[in-house]
């Protein structure tokens, strides 16, 4: 008797979408989120294929150019015509009184750039390659972001540092996010003694004397511990110390959510606690979790660099942005070689990228947001 096929709603697209398809669709329409995603993918790609993109091996030393500034890419020949891109080598001049060294581009030392050049060998999945994305035609050095204290190419090191930094960042972020969510949500949801204990543990972890711990670890570690082992251990420690904040914050939220009618409705259909947590509680805290997680990334990256500042953390020959930044500890590097701070740029870019991605995700998952 009522004909509801001609309901007032003119649905232009009637496809049956799952929730995640919906989220994806909304995400794709979000410009910032997409830019963030593309940038993240790009960064991760860089991390994976760093050796190919980087012109040199991170330990390759250009003995003649220590602390040499970035080389500009020129596309105009000295006489004005357009040529294939090239850089110029530097001639050094030393002030006889202050011993300050200045670098002047040497027009006689032109180094032409090329793609897919042969260079330092690198291996990927056990196969050895020797092509690099960029390099010079004659094999002379090109340092797009200058060199460091040993004449190593900052650009290459930075790219390769992406790997360790991202690994550390994502690992610690992911794991502590997982633990924090798990513990926080369950303690808020179940309450009672469990909650009490968890809260005390959280308090303990939060006020844990972390600084002596870091120093202690280094001293206690076996002498010939591999940098990789140390790295993993530090990642674990960071995870153990970081989840607490999230779990405390989530707990509060969960307590208010668990008394919502929709949770009771889920109980009423017979959903198990696990399901209620996964399907109802966690998604409704996702906005918080995402913000927290995107905030963790820079935190971890910086903590890693602070640890390197203390002399613990990532050890040579592993390269990370943190260890690179650590070279900037005296006025020499600050004033005479500011390009050593280039990893800051990378940190900024990657953090903004992950953040834009996080925001986009948050908005796509927010039922109230549109477009």
């Amino acid at each position: 008797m009522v004909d509801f096929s001609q309901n007032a709603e003119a649905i232009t697209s009637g496809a049956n979408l799952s929730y995640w398809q919906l989220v994806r669709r909304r995400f794709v329409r979000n410009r910032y989120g997409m830019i963030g995603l593309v940038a993240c993918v790009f960064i991760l790609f860089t991390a994976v294929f760093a050796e190919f993109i980087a012109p040199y091996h991170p330990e390759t030393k250009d003995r003649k150019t220590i602390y040499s500034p970035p080389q500009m890419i020129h596309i105009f020949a000295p006489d004005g015509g357009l040529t294939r891109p090239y850089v110029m080598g530097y001639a050094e001049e030393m002030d006889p009184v202050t011993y300050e060294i200045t670098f002047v581009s040497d027009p006689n030392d032109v180094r032409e750039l090329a793609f897919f050049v042969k260079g330092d060998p690198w291996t990927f999945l056990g196969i050895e390659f020797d092509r690099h994305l960029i390099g010079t035609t004659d094999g002379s050095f090109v340092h797009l972001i200058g060199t460091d204290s040993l004449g190593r190419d900052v650009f290459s090191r930075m790219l390769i540092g992406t790997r360790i930094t991202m690994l550390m960042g994502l690992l610690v972020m992911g794991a502590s996010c997982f633990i924090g969510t798990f513990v926080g949500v369950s303690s808020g949801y179940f309450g009672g003694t469990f909650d009490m204990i968890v809260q005390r543990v959280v308090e303990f972890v939060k006020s844990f004397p972390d600084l002596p711990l870091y120093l202690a670890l280094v001293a206690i570690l076996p002498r010939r511990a591999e940098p990789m082992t140390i790295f993993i251990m530090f990642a674990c420690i960071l995870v153990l110390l970081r989840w607490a904040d999230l779990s405390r914050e989530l707990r509060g939220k969960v307590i208010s959510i668990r008394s919502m009618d929709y949770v009771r409705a889920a109980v009423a259909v017979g959903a198990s606690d696990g399901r209620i947590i996964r399907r109802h509680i966690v998604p409704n805290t996702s906005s918080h979790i995402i913000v927290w997680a995107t905030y963790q990334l820079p935190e971890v990256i910086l903590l890693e660099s602070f640890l390197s500042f203390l002399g613990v953390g990532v050890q040579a020959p592993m390269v990370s942005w943190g260890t690179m930044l650590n070279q900037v500890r005296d006025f020499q590097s600050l004033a005479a070689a500011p390009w050593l701070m280039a990893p800051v740029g990378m940190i900024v870019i990657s953090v903004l990228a992950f953040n834009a991605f996080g925001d986009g995700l948050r908005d796509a998952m927010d039922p109230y947001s549109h477009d």
Partner: protein
Amino acid sequence: ADKMPEEKSLSGVQYELIGRDDLYTYKALPQYNQAPFLDALVAAGKLPPVNERLPKEPVVFKTGAMVDGLGEYGGVFRHVIGGRPEGFNWLAGQHQGWGGINMAVQECLVRQGPRWQIKSEEQSGPLPNLAKSWEWNSDMTELTMHLIEGAKWSDGDPFDTQDIAFWYNDNVEDTNVASRITAGGFGGGAKLEVIDDYTFKFIFPSAQSNTLIEGLAYIQGCPGPSHILKDKHPKYNSAASYDDYLNAMPSDNVPIPVMGAWVPVEHRPDEIVIMRRNPYYWKVDEAGNQLPYINEMHFKLTTWDDRTTQAVAGTGDFSNMENPGNFVEALKQSQDPSAPVSAKFGPRTLAWRIELNYAANMAASDYDKELRNLFRNLDFRKAMSHAIDRDAVGQALARGPFAYPYMGGFASGSPYYKASATFYTPFDQASAAEILAGLGLKDTDGNGVLNLPGTGDDLVIDMVYKAQRNDDRKQVDAVTSQLAEVGIRVLPKSVDETSFDPMRNSGDFTAILQRANFILPTRETCGNLPVSDICPAFHLTGAEGRDMLPFEAELADLVTKFNATDDAAAQAGYADRMQTILSENIYNVGLVQIPAALLVNKRVKNAHPGTPVFMYEWAEDSVIRERLWVPADQQISELLPNTVAEY
């Protein structure tokens, strides 16, 4: 053998070394002057007139040795230090704040710092100070010393052999007191005999050498105010415990009586120590002006890094700049006419090296044993030395001409260093590779790292360094990277400074990269030469004794000979031989050496160019602060003007 490359000095200024008596002498002058504000105090009866305060024959600093000549009274000298006063009872081993307070309050029997300026022919031991002169008996078992007569503590109490007796008998010889000279430690247990108010004698159980007197210089031979401390010593005061005695002059209980040029009058923990001129100071200039010239001295209590920063900024007046990373900036600063500070480079005295552990018989594992045996092989050390590009290391440390290759042994700024006595192993990767191959080290598993012939493991050297030291870290980086190119893998291991020493002293390491200040054969001997079972730490004696390297016995022997003689020329000969052995055998794999620079504010006069940051003593002593002065128009205002310590 290869010749050392030519070394370029950085101090730039040429100065002449002088004779001992050209620096200062003891004599009475016809008339004495004092800082003008003291006149009022004298007039008010708070102080006796200046000639009554001065000793009979004060120390007279020669104008000829002062670069800027006689000074003007007044002003403030601002130190910035990382140290903190622990207490003022230095007799019981307390320090008053490293970085200049110690040396300002403690005056010692003899003085080492200014020795750097003395011609080598006249280098016959330390300079006189509280002890005006001394002589040995013929068989070198008795040392008689004569104190300056009529000198007074800053509270007016006379300084005499009572203070010496209290220092020696009740502190050095009292095992309950952690004095800087341990009981029985001076000349194998010398006995003190007081002869009169100003004369005393040490009687030794066995014959001694003149070098022993160096042990009476700063921090060891510095008497304290017995008229204050005696009452608090358990021996004289049954109510007191040794703990009470240790804290008899707590750090915030100022002023205290000192013999030094300034008296601490204000201590704000963690903020500042303020010192005012000592009106009883016993040194004058040739015009009879009582020293010091400067009225007030500040010690801002912050951090060591801050010391250089503030000196560069001009808010501190003095710093031993040892961080090469700041050299160029500091130099640029000092060239700028408006800049507040001038940087004076001394000789190269800061040297870095790798210490390899030779104690193969103490190795914990087969691997360690094989590694240490490898280290004991001169060829291996040669290969390592060839593999290191010292120029690159130096440039990494500080861009510019600061660094000079270091081959082990004495730093080039040492008076005992001779380039001709030094063996040089130039950077030569080909030879390094060849030698390594000759040792049977081959990369058998193709991972780019050589394998040990015995255990077959990768050749991995774990190298300990101090985490906090930026310079050390840069060099570890460089060495790691360079050695990797010849197939030696270095695993850097950073350790904080406090863990570092126990680790080193117990020989629990494979290799260490650190800075070593080897300048005098008599100073830090243990860290450098095989003089005892626990010296040096990189070659300890194990349960099965010490398996000496072939040249180590001769080194030990040379040390003994050096100490036994007073003959400057003979000593130089022994030192040359040591240098040759050390560098030829690459006892330590030297890296680079650089000068340190003394940063002194430009308004401060009489800071002698070329003053080494560290040689016979740290620069705070070598620069002779009592004769520094500031022209009146550049003086900054005093916080406690017109006052002296009141007791």
